[in-house]
Structure formats: C-alpha cells, structure tokens
C-alpha cells in the first residue's frame, strides 16, 4: 500500500473543476496540488490567511511569512493575496470556498466526519476543520479505506467525536469513490484497479448502493502495476 496516498491524491485531483476555489488539508490532501489535470486552473486557499497558493519555493528561497496552515513554505501565484484569520473564515464559512479535501479517521453513513480526536488520545484540537466541513460547498474525504488495524474507516456510525454532522459529500480512497446524494445516500461510483465489487463490500461498513454505471478498474492502474512490479521483483 505504499502507493495508496498517491493513488488517492491522483484520483482526488480528477474532482477539480476549472476555476474552482479549493482548500487542502494538511498531509495527504496537500499532495493533490501535485496532480491537478492539465487545462484545469484552481485557486488554492490556505486558512491561515492566503489565497492563490502556488508551487513550493525552491530550497533556500523559503520565506518565514509565506507558509500554509501546516507551516510548510509556500509561494503565491499572480492574483493571490493575504488576509487575516477572521476574513479567512468568513470566506470558508460563507460558502466562498467551492471544495475542500480532508483526511479523516472515520466517515459514516450519514455523512458524519470524525477527524480530529481519538477518545482517550491526546487533544490536539480541530483547527479549521469544523469550519471547512461546514462552509465548503463540496466536502471531499480523502483517506485510506481502512485503518492500520484493518478496520474500515467507512463506518455505519462514527464512534469518535465528530468534526461535522452530515457534511461529507464524496469519499475517495485508494480502492473506491463513493458519492452521497440527498435521497439515495452513498453510491459506489468507481472501483480502483486490483479491487472487485466484492472486495469493496468486504471492507466497507457504511451502507451504499452500487451505481448502475459503476466503473471498474477506474483508477489506480499505474500504482497497481507499479506495486505488482515491485512485488514481483521482491518475489512476493
């Protein structure tokens, strides 16, 4: 599964539409910027106070006052600008951000998201995640399908404290893409290369229906091939 994150980021980037304003969470979601399809121009907002985030600066050109919410150095593209935190969350909460991509610990049947605290674990804090899932027009959950212990992160009902209730719109994992509709609930739209419908059913707890036109081998072929090659080299 070494390539799972890349598979997810690459597939998630296919969700982008030209002209959209997006916010990318820390970690895996930030990688999505590396896979923006040709011909698609998106504007990246960072909740600590910048819009128009561009490529990372060249080594040695980092600037203390140009960073994202994960403290990684950034640049701004032409037309970008800076603002304060109250204004930033006016943008986010006010629905001016089209789409957000966030990792998660759990996501469930009702679109509930739990991504900020493990009961009994150390409190870090929700940061801007609660505002992002509430305010962004489309909330994409980008996550490995299963937790480290093998249990499904796509649960019937979240057991951890929620980040947002009824907010998840799309789930993108290294194995599948599910989209949630008002009346139908979660619909399985795509299955990644190397997985079958039965595989997805086996590792998914939340109820979903399978789209009539579900796409098999829809994405991840490159990574699956690379993985297979690696395994074969290793004699696995």
């Amino acid at each position, binding site marked *: 599964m070494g390539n799972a994150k890349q598979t997810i980021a690459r597939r998630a980037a296919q969700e982008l539409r030209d002209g959209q304003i997006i916010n990318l969470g820390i970690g895996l979601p930030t990688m999505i910027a590396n896979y923006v399809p040709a011909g698609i121009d998106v504007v990246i907002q960072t909740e600590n106070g910048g819009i128009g985030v561009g490529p990372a600066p060249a080594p040695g050109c980092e600037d*203390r*006052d140009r960073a994202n919410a994960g*403290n990684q150095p950034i640049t701004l593209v032409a037309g970008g600008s800076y603002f304060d935190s109250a204004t930033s969350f006016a943008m986010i909460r006010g629905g001016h951000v089209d789409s957000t991509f966030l990792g998660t610990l759990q996501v469930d049947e009702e679109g509930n998201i739990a991504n900020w605290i493990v009961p009994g674990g150390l409190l870090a804090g929700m940061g*801007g995640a609660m505002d992002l899932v509430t305010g962004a027009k489309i909330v994409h959950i980008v996550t490995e399908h299963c937790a480290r212990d093998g249990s499904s992160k796509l649960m019937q009902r979240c057991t951890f404290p929620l980040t947002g209730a009824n907010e998840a719109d799309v789930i993108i994992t290294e194995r599948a893409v599910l989209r949630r509709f008002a009346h139908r609930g979660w619909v399985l739209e795509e299955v990644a290369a190397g997985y079958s419908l039965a595989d997805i059913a086996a590792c998914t707890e939340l109820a979903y229906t399978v789209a009539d036109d579900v796409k098999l081998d829809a994405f991840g072929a490159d990574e699956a091939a690379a993985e297979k090659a690696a395994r074969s080299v290793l004699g696995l």
Partner: protein
Amino acid sequence: MSIAIGGFIGQGDPLTLIDYLKTMDVGDLTVYENDAGYRDRGTVELVNQGKVKKIVASHVGTTPDIAKAMNEGRLEVEATPQGTLAEMLRCGGAGLGGFLTPTGIGTIAEEGKQIVELNGRPFILVPAARCDIALVRAHRGDTWGNLIFRGTSRNFNVPAAMCADYVIAEVENLYTMGELDPEAIHTSGIFVDAVVRANVSYCTVRDEPLEAAARSK
C-alpha cells in the same frame, strides 16, 4: 487576567512580548490564541512556567509540552474551531455580544452553548471574547500604532489587536506617523495602545513540520 495573543504556530507570534512576559511575576492567565506556539517557543513557555491557567485555542498539537501540562492537570485547554475563535476576538473588539455560527452543530463544540434556530437552521450562540490585554506582532508600525503585517503572519494578529482593553504591538520596523500609506493600514492605531520594537525573530518554515502538526488538521 485574559490575554489574546496573535500569530499562528510561529508565524507572526509576538515573541518579544512573550519573552518579556516570561520575566514578569504574573499568573492565572487565560490565553486566547490559535495555538500555543511552535515546538518549545511561544506561549508554551509561559505554560511551562506555570503562568497559564487556561488556553482557548483551535490546535495545540505543535507544542508537545502542552499535552504534558494537560495530562498533569496543570493546564486547561478549551478546543475551539479556528473560525469561531477568530470571530470571538473580532466580536469582542467590535462591541458585539456574540454571534451565531453553524460551525460545530452536531459536535462537542455545542456543549454548554445555547442553540438558536433561525429560518429552521440551528446555530451555536458564541459569546464574544473581550480580553484585558492583547499581544500582537507586525512587520511595520508607526508611533501611533498603525500596523501593517506581512504575508501569512497577519492571521490572528488582526482580531487579537481589536479585542483587548490594552493592546501592545511589537513591530519589526518602526515608522513615524505619515510614513505608512493610509490606504494600506491593516490595523488602525485606534485599536493599539503601545508599540515596542521586536527584538527577536521567529522561524518556522525552514524547519521540518512536526509529526503532530502533519498528522492532524
């Protein structure tokens, strides 16, 4: 005593003023800040000195000592959504009693809060935070307290500078009145009571991000 502190995990943290606070005989502080600083630098130092009773923050994962202080019962942390915290400070500065936010409905952010329904939609009623003191940092400032920030170091410095009865700004570059463009002031001197020169730097982005910071959002 309540203190609002600007900055965002190091970016624009008023470290000159925090260093000064470290030398003072104060205690029982309630701090309103996005976080507790970065690694071992910032408000976390005041916590380690035992000066802080409570911190209202959106995220304290970038300062490992905070977890220790919480576990040992030396510190209370009130986790608050980042946008809610920014608005609490702005409202405190704007003379508003509070605001209604949809953020956190259906989560523990509701706990202990009044829910108000408007047009069939529930909102959390968040009381404004008005503080005794605020500490902020700006890139440029004049002798009346007009401030101009730089890049993403603007962040919580703007709402923090509004919300307190006594606001102290440290500035990296001090100008006389009239030198700053009246169209480009980010925080008017009307909000600021005292200005000092910043004499220490902060450094964030050249470090590798902390694992804790990278893991959580």
